[in-house]
């Protein structure tokens, strides 16, 4: 129970961090970053075997943020765990920083793939999972994708391929917040029934409350869900979680709050005003 409280507090701290980094850096995808906080906390604090000391270890678990626009969430977690110095967070988006609006694996310790164009993380992660099997290693590969991202054809090409090659060391998590950039998926190109689609492509699907750390950890702990099949968690989430006026509002996808809005958000997230 103590541990769970600790992780819940972590998630809250990460949320505050995300909001401050993006507002001070002058631009970024706030709601998409807030959407995946608990998923990252569950993975990085409980599941992944990677530490700042093992970022080049061939046996480490791999985490790929395919929806790279949510990178600030990942930056906040990596900094908290010591993959790089926390002071780097203050340089986000600025000239000469290592922390841009999408993650760069050549610059940031602990980042496994340079993402930003949607639909690349799953094929890349599939390649890593395949190499793991070839080399008889027992690491796992985790890929977080957006639900809108699943509109890209490349996602389904990888889905079919990973199942064909029985990559049960691969686990994809869909951040199912039902929004994409402009609107809801339902108003643009619906992807439901999401679970049935993935199941039909040969994956084992579980659903979870994507903001419930315990539920996520419990699921991750039982991987693979089925021997010989890639695993998928459909994480039901709220885009913009934690900032009331951003929750489920497409307009906030890439917008910065004004002074008044910022005060409201600071208050809701529990950030001390300076």
């Amino acid at each position, binding site marked *: 129970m103590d541990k769970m409280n600790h992780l819940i507090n972590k998630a809250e701290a990460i949320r505050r961090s995300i909001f401050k980094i993006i507002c001070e*850096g002058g*631009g970024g995808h706030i709601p998409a970053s807030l959407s995946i906080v608990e998923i990252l906390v569950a993975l990085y604090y409980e599941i992944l075997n990677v530490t700042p000391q093992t970022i080049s270890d061939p046996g480490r678990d791999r985490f790929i943020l395919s929806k*790279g626009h949510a990178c600030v969430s990942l930056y906040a977690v990596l900094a908290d765990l010591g993959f790089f110095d926390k002071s780097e967070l203050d340089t986000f*988006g*600025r*000239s*000469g*920083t290592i*922390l*841009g*609006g*999408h993650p*760069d694996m050549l610059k940031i310790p602990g980042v496994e793939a*340079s*993402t*930003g*164009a*949607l*639909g690349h993380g799953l094929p890349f992660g599939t390649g890593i999972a395949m190499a793991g099997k070839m080399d008889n290693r027992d690491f796992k590969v985790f890929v977080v994708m957006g639900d*809108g*991202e699943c*509109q*890209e*054809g490349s996602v389904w090409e990888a889905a079919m391929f990973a199942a064909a090659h029985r990559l049960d060391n691969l686990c994809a998590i869909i951040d199912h917040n039902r929004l*994409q*950039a*402009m*609107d809801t*998926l339902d108003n*643009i*190109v619906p992807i439901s029934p999401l679970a049935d689609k993935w199941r039909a492509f040969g994956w084992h699907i579980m659903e979870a409350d994507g903001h419930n750390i315990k539920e996520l950890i419990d699921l991750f702990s039982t991987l693979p869900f089925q021997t010989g099949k890639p695993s998928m968690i459909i994480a039901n989430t709220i885009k913009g979680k934690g900032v009331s006026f951003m929750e489920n509002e*497409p*307009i906030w*996808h890439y917008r910065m709050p004004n002074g008044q809005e910022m005060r409201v958000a600071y208050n809701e997230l529990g950030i001390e005003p300076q």
Partner: protein
Amino acid sequence: MRNAYIDALYELAGRDCRVLALVADNGAIVYDKFRAAYPGRFINFGIAEANMIGVAAGLASCGKVPFAYTIASFLTMRAFEQIRNDVCMQRMNVKIVGIGAGFVYSNLGATHHATIDMSIMRALPGMTVFSPSGPIEARKITKEAARIDGPVYIRLSVGGSPEIYEAGYEFETGKGVILRDGGDAAIFTTGSITTEVLKAHGELKNMGINARVVNIHTIKPIDKDLIIDSVSKTRAVITVEEHSIIGGLGSAVAEVIAENGIAARFKRIGLNGVFAGGYGTYDDMKERNGLSANAIVRETIDCINKN
């Protein structure tokens, strides 16, 4: 530029019911007016650029005139084979409109920069390639694209690019524009980096160097006559592009010079085999990647002084 494009598209749609606006989960509010007026002719494909271009080609085969618009890097590269096979190989009347030319999406990083799009679009048989330098030109190019029967690529910067032309500016496809004249050097440029070149021109002038500045708004077909004329008069040629120097404006100008056997000092300014580095603001990016007015001044002087 984006607003100029969307306004022009709106006007085109009013006159021609074959004109369609295609997007891929990009450009939310800016299309509101279009969407309200022509709801059946605004199609959002979601995050699926390749499918958007494939469908556009099919629509065009039935006489529609689709303008497919999204972030230039995803549009030209994710959907490249669809552009090549479905649009160009079959000579379909599809307009491909990329937003975010060069590294104007500065801190979003290399995935969001379009710095080889001119090279790859120029290489496609039958493709006309436009690169407007500001809103007025973007507007004229959009109208012109509708008149052309065949594949067109338009490379737009973002909203709020500064204007370099007066309202009466006359645009002609394939004809470069002498923005400033001078005999000491010829600087060819394209797109929104033109404003930086004009600044450099002013600084050079203060130093007693008179450069001709030519805006190449049509990358393909390129204005051979104006290139030959400018090179013959100055014998010192500089190209400036917010793009790779491999395959873009600099290469296109070099091809004309070489094929016409004109001896000249020559320098391409742009990204030399690298992804644009640095993050920060657009101005920070220009500075870091050798495309500030100062860098252009320096390189121009070097080029003039070369033996």
